[in-house]
């Protein structure tokens, strides 16, 4: 099974290609891939409860796609409520994903 690590470090609503990350994740899952979607820096703005991108990511979260948000980035932005389906995570989990061999890394 192909494994993809997608890291979103930008606000996904700031640039027009941001939402394509969600489409990419969905298409990869459809192809049978395992996707680890990690939000960091301004990317965690899309984890905020009830934000538009959070709703989309929440819908995607489930078998085949894990959606995580970096705890330090959330704290720095005062984000303490994540949308359901998006888990609070840490740099340790990102390092684990890299070390476990998510062979394809896309850093946005």
């Amino acid at each position, binding site marked *: 099974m192909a494994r993809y690590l997608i890291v979103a*470090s*930008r606000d996904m609503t700031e*640039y027009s290609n941001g939402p394509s990350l969600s489409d990419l994740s969905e298409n990869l899952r459809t192809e049978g891939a395992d996707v680890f979607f990690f939000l*960091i*820096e*301004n990317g965690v703005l899309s984890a905020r409860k009830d934000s538009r991108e959070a709703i989309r990511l929440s819908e995607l979260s489930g078998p085949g796609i894990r959606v995580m948000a970096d705890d*330090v*980035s959330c704290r720095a932005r005062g984000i303490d409520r994540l949308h359901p389906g998006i888990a609070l995570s840490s*740099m*340790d989990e*990102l*390092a*684990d994903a*890299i*070390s*476990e*061999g998510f*062979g394809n*890394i896309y*850093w*946005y």
Partner: protein
Amino acid sequence: MLQEEAEDGILTKKVRKVAIVISTGSYMREAPTTVLRLAEKLLERDIEVNIWAFEEAVTLTNREQVEHSEPPSLRKVIGDKHAYVGKFIDQLLRAGLHTSKLDWVTCILCAQERGVEHHQMNGVIVGTLGDLWKFVRSADQVIAIPAYR
């Protein structure tokens, strides 16, 4: 290269070496901080980390960086001194003496253009695109941090 090892009869891929490419300089964006946080965690996992810094990222390892005093009104909140990123890079490079190895290479052309070629901190290698190629070719994983404006 990426190796497969049997753990309880299950083959899992083990990453031994990661290359990170960064072009973001000090005080521009959070990317340098994120790279340092990630590098520290990878080194803790006995993973060798090779960082290739180019464009403004060559200023991250300028040894002339100094702490400066914070405004009095902010000292209770953020402390007396404003730290600089080079300090943390230096700590990581020194940690590599006792843990997994960290190599930090700055692009010679980018450093010359910015006048910092002869101001790189100890432990940093001023290199060429050939070093980048070697990093990429030997790495199990390559992470390219995008520069966006």
